[in-house]
């Protein structure tokens, strides 16, 4: 259950047996053709996979460097890669005979994905969400309720994602006999980081085939944003053995020289969070620090342990991008390609533009467009209109 020295299972004893059971089942299930067939069928017939691979021709021309390709996870049902994992875990829960789903959510994306699959597979769904996030994301709360989920407000700590996750785990400890905990990213105790990766590697598997079909070779570099890191691992994993540069992009928020960022790998230290030994933002006493990013999907104080490992062995380079750079990247993609990306994905884009400019026209950069920006339009409007006050020409 480790990625190098990272990962593990730092949880109350109560959860050890359920985690062992899950691991055994997972091991058997991921080799079970029937299970995989069902998983692929649901991805195709319900979520609309394969997602497109779009050549960003205008962007490429504009930047003058490497060809830029976008893997369009924004075209998934519910608008992001989150559903891949939610479908996989729901099918697994079904196999285990568990009809009650627990999930945590920050801005509501994973909560919506969990509520969605719970509805589709006839399960009950309890979503833990910080009170602060609930008041900021009323529409997503409503969406989850519309999908039949119960949303439990979490008032502990800073009342955001970290605390919602703590509370979800506590609830799980109490109800692990008949509840399945559906974690939304490649975090948590083993086998979660591996399981979520295995359900997200469809991104990279598809992209690899599509890219080879289009270009007859592999991309020069692949860029993905990293919060917990599920879209990035999903995209990177099938390329780990290849001669392809892999770049994970963290949220630098207001800048790495401020306290307001979520650059866990770049700035964090080793520690335990949510059951896993990884890199995290903490003070010298080991108390976890609340991160910051304009992107609700990236402001997580930890990171998937496999990323910590891939950073330590230098297979993946981890960089960071500020709020401002991400928003500029988002505006550029919207304007020249007609695709409004999620602010999370815009972090990957900002770095990809930079990388592409430094490469030649013979090269190509593949970006994981992890989600669509519709969910962010409201906060973008505040940000951009606040910034430009009297200007009309953003």
């Amino acid at each position, binding site marked *: 259950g480790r990625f190098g020295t990272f990962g*593990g*299972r*730092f*949880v*109350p*004893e*109560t*959860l*050890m*047996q*359920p985690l062992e059971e899950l691991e055994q089942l997972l091991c058997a299930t991921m080799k079970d053709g029937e299970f995989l067939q069902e998983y692929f069928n649901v991805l195709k017939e319900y979520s609309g996979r394969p997602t497109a691979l779009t050549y960003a021709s205008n962007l490429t021309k504009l930047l003058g460097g490497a060809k830029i390709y976008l893997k369009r996870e924004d075209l998934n049902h519910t608008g992001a890669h989150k559903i891949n994992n939610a479908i996989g875990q729901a099918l697994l829960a079904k196999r285990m005979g568990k009809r009650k789903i627990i999930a945590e959510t920050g801005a509501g994306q994973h909560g919506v994905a969990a509520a969605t699959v719970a509805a589709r597979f006839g399960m009950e769904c309890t979503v833990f969400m910080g009170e602060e996030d609930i008041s900021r994301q009323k529409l997503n709360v409503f969406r989850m309720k519309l999908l039949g989920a119960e949303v439990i407000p979490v008032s*502990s*700590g800073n009342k955001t994602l*970290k*605390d919602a996750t*703590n509370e979800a*785990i*506590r609830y799980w*400890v*109490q*109800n*692990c*006999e008949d509840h399945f905990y559906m974690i939304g990213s490649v975090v948590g105790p083993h086998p979660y980081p591996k399981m979520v990766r295995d359900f997200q590697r469809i991104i990279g598997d598809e992209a690899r085939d599509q890219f080879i079909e289009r270009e007859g070779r592999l991309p020069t570099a692949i860029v993905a944003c990293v919060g917990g890191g599920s879209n990035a691992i999903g995209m990177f994993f099938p390329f780990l053995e290849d001669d392809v540069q892999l770049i994970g992009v963290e949220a630098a928020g207001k800048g790495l020289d401020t306290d307001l960022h979520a650059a866990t790998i770049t700035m964090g*230290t*080793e*520690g*335990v*969070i*949510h*059951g896993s030994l990884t890199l995290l933002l*903490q003070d*010298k*006493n*080991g*108390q*976890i620090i609340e991160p910051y990013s304009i992107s609700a999907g990236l402001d997580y104080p930890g990171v998937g342990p496999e990323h910590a490992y891939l950073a330590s062995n230098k297979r993946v380079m981890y960089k960071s991008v500020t709020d401002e750079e991400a928003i500029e990247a988002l505006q550029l993609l919207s304007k020249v390609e007609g695709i409004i990306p999620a602010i999370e994905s815009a972090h990957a884009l900002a770095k990809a533009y930079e990388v592409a400019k430094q490469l030649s026209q013979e090269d190509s950069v593949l970006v994981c467009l992890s989600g669509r920006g519709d969910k962010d339009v409201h906060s973008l409007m505040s940000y951009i209109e606040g910034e430009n006050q009297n200007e009309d020409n953003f």
Partner: protein
Amino acid sequence: MKTTFEQRLPKKNKLFIPFIVAGDPHPNITVDLAIMLQEAGASVLELGIPYSDPLADGPVIQKAASRALKNEVTLENSIKLVSIMRKKGLKIPVIIFTYYNPVLQLGEDNFFALVQQNEVDGLLIPDLPFEENESLREKCQQNGVTFISLVAPTSTNRIAKIATNAQGFLYCVSALGVTGVRNSIHDHIYSFLEEAKKYSNVPVAVGFGISNSTQIEALKGYCDGVVIGSALVQKIEELIPKLMDEETKTTALLNFKNYVSSIISPINN
């Protein structure tokens, strides 16, 4: 050679193991509360280190930890409190109850140095299960620190390996879930405790959700001791205004001691 835990452990029929949070509501008062607990008949003190993300704790202890963190309580200064307790007459073994991350950040060498300097006897890490704690258990052994293990109702075929390796006492989690007061105790607790006793070479104590004498009465025939945490922390929370006022502090401490005595009366009978 006997461990300090064994040396300090009072000879009692049944162990009463109270849990309080270091620095809640104030480090000085924690020392006073520890003395009260000893006077009320505690066999072992579990001293909880406040943590920002206490996965195994319910709302009562979470709130206590938040209060303590506002007092800038850390793992290091919590351990140092034990020295002060000793000076004030605390004789019973003290177990540091902490999540793993603070230990990791302090560093194991620093941690063991502090533990020995401050006469701490044991360590309990709720989020460091058997498979993750082997190396730390060994270091504890080398440093004469007793490593307390937990088993839960879900531990099933894990009980044997955990119980046979237990030191000090075996902490049996009485119910699924986090720490906190519960009204009833599940029936299958009895068979679970029997299973634990079968493999354990040390006393078997029950914890999580024990808050009153009726529960203790019902359990005492099946275990060697009880851990009581949230009920005490809750009582402390109620007494905060009085504990923090020099004029009423002594009365409040006595009030606390009487409350503890009344809960654990079945143990002493």
